[in-house]
């Protein structure tokens, strides 16, 4: 039977751009170009490698986001994923992790899955907890923050490198996996891949299709509220000296003045 892989991806404002909050204190998506979150490219890459090893596999990339989030899906399709699902609904604007995870979980169930793969975190919210929440919602094992992952005979195995120890993990499918940026460089889409992606199916879903009420998601349905967002003042310019042989000594003077030595 075919191995059904769902990769969750997020369309985020470019981290190298000048990111801001909008007036309603959600992420401003208008002033900065969006793209597929870099950390999700690792998830797409591992999905492709697992699919290569399997006899028969199908990769669906899934995103929840505005119209432009299609760009993230196209990128993943051009890397080699087979099809895409885009959940788009005006009522989703301002969803927090609880709302977004609810939508993702319902869409994953509707799509059908054996393995869900996520990146380790998004590059905008950077919470890093969505995969664990998906596992909780779906009621399947969580095999997260892997630097190495493989699937064999209905079992997913991987290495989780923590602060204190490196752990070898194992769980029966279906399961939710997340992979780190140590899992292996993501491939660049080939010209052929980019052309092929244009013909791959992108299924559009709305909240109604997933039996989710508008008040369960969005800014109004969020379980957290941002009361204020303040731009951090630029650091005041410091002293910069050119090393003319005394740089080490001058630096030591500075550190001594600050009572570090």
């Amino acid at each position, binding site marked *: 039977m075919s191995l059904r892989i769902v990769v969750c991806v997020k369309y985020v404002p470019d981290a190298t751009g000048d990111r801001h909050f909008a007036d309603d204190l959600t992420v401003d998506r208008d002033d900065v170009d969006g793209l597929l979150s870099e950390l999700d490219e690792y998830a797409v890459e591992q999905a492709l490698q697992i699919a290569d090893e399997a006899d028969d596999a199908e990769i669906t990339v899934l995103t929840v986001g505005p119209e432009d989030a299609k760009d993230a899906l196209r990128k993943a399709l051009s890397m080699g994923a087979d099809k895409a699902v885009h959940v788009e609904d005006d009522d989703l604007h301002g969803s927090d992790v609880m709302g977004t995870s609810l939508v993702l979980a319902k869409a994953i169930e509707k799509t059908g899955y054996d393995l869900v793969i996520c990146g380790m975190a998004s590059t905008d919210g950077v919470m890093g907890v969505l995969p664990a929440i998906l596992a909780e919602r779906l009621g399947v094992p*969580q095999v997260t923050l892997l630097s190495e992952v493989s699937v064999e005979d209905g079992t997913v195995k991987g290495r989780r490198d923590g602060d204190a120890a490196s752990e070898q993990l194992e769980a029966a499918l279906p399961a939710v996996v997340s992979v780190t940026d140590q899992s292996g460089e993501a491939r660049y889409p080939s010209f052929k891949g980019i052309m092929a992606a244009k013909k791959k199916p992108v299924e559009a879903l709305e909240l109604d299709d997933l039996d989710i009420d508008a008040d369960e998601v969005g800014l109004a349905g969020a379980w957290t509220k*941002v009361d204020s967002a303040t731009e951090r003042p630029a650091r005041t310019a410091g002293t910069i000296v050119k090393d003319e042989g005394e740089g*080490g000594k001058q630096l030591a003077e500075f550190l001594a003045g600050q009572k570090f*030595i």
Partner: protein
Amino acid sequence: MAEVLVYVDHVDGAVRKPTLELLTLARRIGEPVAVALGNGAADTAAALAEHGAVKVLTADAPEFADYLVVPKVDALQAAYEAVSPAAVLLPSSAEAKEIAARLAVRIKSGIITDAIDLEAGDEGPVATQSAFAASYTTKSRITQGTPVITVKPNSAAVEAAPAAGAVEALTVSFSEKATGTKVVSRTPRESTGRPELTEAAIVVSGGRGVNGAENFSVIEALADSLGAAVGASRAAVDAGWYPHSNQVGQTGKSVSPQLYIASGISGAIQHRAGMQTSKTIVAINKDAEAPIFDLVDYGVVGDLFEVVPALTEEVKARKG
């Protein structure tokens, strides 16, 4: 006074510093009730009592070590149900964040992660967070259920505040899902003898300019003279010069020490995201145009292989 659950991060009974910081913050909101799980759980009580825990709920079972995350969620949920706290606080470690998130789903609560400060508010605890690579500071609160909040290391001072710290055994019955992900083997990291990167008061980091794994000894020597932790930029880690566990930046650790010394690091956004909330920042770089110099309190434009060893000697001489 309302009780606040504090999840304890410990290694075989030795409480890690971020948990003691968490007790300082918890006392602003209510009376801390600590939850310690796994091997050595009961041994945490003395340190927790000294820092304000009125009660220490403990549980130990093989499941905590043998299976990933879920057994600890089951235990924390049991503590939550026993105590009915005003808030649940956890340290922002990778594992504790996952525990927090799953608990929040179960108890139908909102979650805030990676707070850098916490204060009591009229409508529940108010959490301060850094956003967009620390270019913004936000204040948020939870509007649904019992607030579940994870807090980053170095967000508060450790304060002595002796309390009873009475140890009580926590009864946990594991859910069917608890044994879903097996920990087949565990290889502890070799200790370097240096402070933990996220907890250190001083961090000395090396980047592309270090130009080779063997040259990191220069960075380590400075770190050791200052009693500092060693960090590395993504460029240095990707080149294989230093372990990923030491990476500072968006996809590595985010640190907020009293003093951060960047050597041979240009200061790309990916790195700045992980260090620009440091109190004092110092950089050594050949390139006077490097963006890192926009952040520094003191910068030296020069060859790190000249400046860093000279600084190390000077530090040693002054420390006698």
